C-alpha cells in the first residue's frame, strides 16, 4: 500500500467541501493532479492544493491507496464520501459527512467526527476514536433509507438520532449516546456500551439494540419479554444478564429487540 500525505495548510475561515479526498479519486494521479483537483470553498470553487500540501505517491488501484491527513480538518466536510476502497487516516478531527455513503475500504478518524458521519453507509469500516456527532450512520434528511451495511465503531460518545432508519450492518458505540438511538431502525445491530438518553429504538420495526449501560427511560411501546443470560446476536456474544424487550409496538407488526444489561 502506498501513502499520500495531506498536510492541511491554514484552517479556512469558510468550510471546505472535499469529497475528492478518497482513494477512488487519488488512484493513478500524480501529486500535481491531486493538487489541481477542484473543491468547494463556501460557494466558490477552489484548488485543492491551496488548502493542502500533498506528498507521497498514489497507487494505480484505489484499494492500494492510503491517504493520511496529517492534522485537523474539522472545517473540511465530506472526506471519504462515496469511497469504495483503500484507506483514509485522519490524524485530527473531521467535519460533517465523513464517510457518507461509503461502500468499502476503511476510514479512521483519530479525533472527533461531526454530524452525519457514515450517513447511509453501505459497506466498509468507519472508526472514530474520539466522539461522533448527531445522526451518525443515519439516512439523508427526509429519506427512509439509512445505513445498510458495513461497520461503524466509536471509541467515545455519540450524539442523538444515531442509526436512524438503519437497514443493516453494525454500529458499536463504546461510550454513551443521545436520545433516539436506532430511531425507525429496521435491521442490523447497535451496541451501546455506555448509557443511552431516552427513546431508544423509537418506531423500530426490526433489528437489535444492546445497551450495556443504563437507559434514561424506556418507551411505552416496548414490552418486557424475559431475562436472558449471555446472549448471542448475529454470531456475537454478550456476557451478563440482560432484560429482553420487543418493540416498538407503536408500529404495526414490529419485531425489534432491545437488550438492556442488568
Amino acid at each position: 500500500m502506498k501513502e499520500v500525505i495531506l498536510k492541511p495548510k491554514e484552517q479556512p475561515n469558510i468550510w471546505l467541501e472535499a469529497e475528492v479526498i478518497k482513494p477512488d479519486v487519488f488512484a493513478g494521479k500524480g501529486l500535481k493532479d491531486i493538487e489541481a483537483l477542484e473543491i468547494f470553498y463556501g460557494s466558490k470553487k477552489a484548488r485543492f492544493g491551496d488548502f493542502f500540501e500533498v506528498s507521497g505517491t498514489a497507487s494505480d488501484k484505489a484499494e492500494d491507496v492510503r491517504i493520511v491527513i496529517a492534522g485537523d480538518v474539522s472545517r473540511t466536510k465530506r472526506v471519504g464520501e462515496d469511497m469504495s476502497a483503500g484507506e483514509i487516516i485522519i490524524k485530527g478531527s473531521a467535519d460533517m459527512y465523513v464517510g457518507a455513503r461509503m461502500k468499502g475500504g476503511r476510514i479512521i478518524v483519530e479525533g472527533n467526527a461531526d454530524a452525519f458521519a457514515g450517513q447511509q453507509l453501505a459497506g466498509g469500516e468507519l472508526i472514530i476514536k474520539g466522539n461522533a456527532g448527531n445522526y451518525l450512520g443515519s439516512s439523508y434528511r427526509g429519506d427512509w433509507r439509512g445505513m445498510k451495511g458495513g461497520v461503524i465503531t466509536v471509541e467515545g460518545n455519540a450524539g442523538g438520532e444515531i442509526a436512524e432508519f438503519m437497514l443493516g450492518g453494525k454500529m458499536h458505540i463504546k461510550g454513551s449516546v443521545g436520545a433516539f438511538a436506532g430511531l425507525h431502525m429496521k435491521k442490523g445491530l447497535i451496541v451501546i456500551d455506555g448509557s443511552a438518553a431516552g427513546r431508544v429504538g423509537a418506531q423500530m420495526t426490526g433489528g437489535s439494540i444492546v445497551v450495556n449501560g443504563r437507559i434514561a427511560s424506556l418507551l411505552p411501546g416496548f414490552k418486557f419479554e424475559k431475562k436472558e443470560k449471555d446472549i448471542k446476536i448475529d454470531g456475537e456474544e454478550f456476557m451478563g444478564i440482560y432484560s429482553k424487550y420487543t418493540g416498538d409496538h407503536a408500529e404495526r407488526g414490529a419485531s425489534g429487540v432491545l437488550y438492556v444489561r442488568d
Partner: protein
Amino acid sequence: MSIILKNGTVYDPLNGIDGEKKDILIEGGRIVDKVNERKATTIDCSNKVVMPGGIDIHSHIAGGKVNVGRCLRPEDHAKSVLPRTAITRSGSGFSTPSTFMTGYLYSRMGYTTVFTPAMPPLMARHTHEELHDIPMLDKAAYTLCDGNWFILKYLKNGEVEKCAAYIAWLLKATKGFVVKVTNPGGTEAWGWGRDCRSLDDVVPYFDISPRELIKGLVEVNELLHLPHSVHLHANNLGRLGNYATTLETFRIPKGKAANERQILQVTHAQFNSFGGDSWKNFESKADAIAKAINHSDSVIIDAGNVTLDETTTMTADGPLEYYLHSLSHLKWANRNIEMEAAPGVTPFVYSPKAATAAIQWAIGLELELLIRDPWKVLLSTDHPNGGPFIRYPRIIAWLMSRKYREKTISELNKAVNDRSTIHAVDREYSLYEIAVITRAGQAKALGISEEKGHLGVGAHADVAVYDIDASKLNGSEEIEKKFSSAAYTIKDGEIVVRNGEIIKTVDGRTYWVNPQVNEELEKEVMKDIEYNFKRYYSVNLANYPVGEEYLTRPAQVKIDTELG
C-alpha cells in the same frame, strides 16, 4: 428578430406535413411566409428534425401540493442539483424540481407550453405566484371543480345554468383555463372519511353521484364553450379492477363539441386501466380501454406513463394518496382546503423488480400503441405521478423502438409477460406520430391549435429543432439523447436553447378564460357566492379573486357562451 430555419425535415401534423424538407420563416414572434433574407438569422437545419414546440397538457409544475411535495422530500432535491450560470438561476429536485429549474429543463427538451392541471381555487394566488417564477414556457392552470360545495349543490338541484355561471366566475376569479375534476364525489366524500367507489355511490350530505357530476360538468363546459373539454381524473384511480369504472365513465358523455373536439379527456388513463382483484393477480386492461377509445367520438385520454423511477405522487385525490401511503408505509401529507379540495402527497418507488410497477409501465405504452389514432392519446406521465417529465425522451424512444421495449422487458419483473400484452405489440411510432402526441394533438385537445402546436403562417413561433437525421434513425439511445437536448428551442421567435443549453431566458404567457354570462344570471349567482363566503369561507370575497398582475404576460381568452 427574423429567423430562417433552412432546409429542415419538418413534422407539422396540424398542417399535414410529414417529414417534408422545407424552410420555416419567423418574424415578430410568429411564423410568417416571407422575411428579409439579408436581415434574418439563418440556421442550417439540413439533416435536422423541425417540429412545433412541445406542449404538455398535464404536468404538476405548480399549485399548493407541488410545494408540499418539495417540503416533504428534501432527499429528492439532494438527488438532482442544477448550478446557476451567468443567465440562469440554480435549482434542485428530481421529481419536483424548483420553479426556475422546471422552466429550463422543459425548454432544453424543446418544450414551449406546459399546463398545470390541479389548482384548488383557494390556492390560485399561490399557484400563479409559482407559475410566475417558471420561465421559458407558456402556462395555464386548471381550476379544481370536484369537491366544490357550490357545484355539488347546483348540480344536485338541477341548476345547470347557475352552475355554469358560478364556474364562469370561478375560472375568472382564479385565472384558470380548464374545468378539472378529480375523483368526482370521492374527494368530497373523503372529507367525511369516505370515498365514492362506483359511479352511483352518492356523496354524503350532498346526495349526488359521480355519474351525475360528470354529466353535469360536461354540460356546463359546453354551455360555456370553453377551449378545452372537461379534464377528468376518473373515479377509482389506482384501485384494483378499476378498468370497469373507466369504461363506464367513457360512456357518460355523448357527441362532440361544436368545434369538433372531444367533450371529455380522461387523464393519465394508465392509472385507470387496472384489472385483477388482488395485487397478486393485478393485470393490464389497457387493451379494453384502448378498444373503447378506438370506438369513441367523445372521449380522448392522455397516457400517464410510468417511467420506473422513484418519484413523488401528488393528486387532489385525497383518499387515493392515503391508500398509496398505506401500501408503501412511506411518509404522507394531506391537506384539506375548506369548501374546495383535499389533496395528498406521498413518495412512490416504481421498482422494475416489482410486478405492479412493471405492469403499470406496460399499460402506459400499451395505451399509446393500441389506440390506433394518435390524436386520441397524448403523451404524459402525469408528472411527477408516473415519473418526472425529464423522462419524456425515454418514452418517445420506447414508442419508436420495439427493440428498446424488449430490452426493458428483459430487465423487468416477469409478470409483465403474463399480465400485459406489451411483448406482443410490434407497432413503432413514426416521428410524425410523435409530433402528434407531444404537440399537435395536445394543442388540438386543448382548443389552442389556432396559434399553437403547428408551424403554419400566423402560429406562435414556438419551434423545436432536434439533431436527428430522419432518414437514418440510429437506435433508441440516440433518439432519447436527441429529444433530451434540443439543437434549438425557439420561443416566441427568439432562440432560447442551443445544443441543449439555455442561452436566453424569457417569460411565457399565462392563459386564462373569461366566459361571458348574462348579467341577470351572474347577479343571481353572486348572491349565493356572497352568502356562502360570509358564512363559510376563511377569506373575504374581495380577497379571493386573483388579479392579472400576478400573471406573466396574461393572455385572456374571452368567450361568447350559450348564456351570454
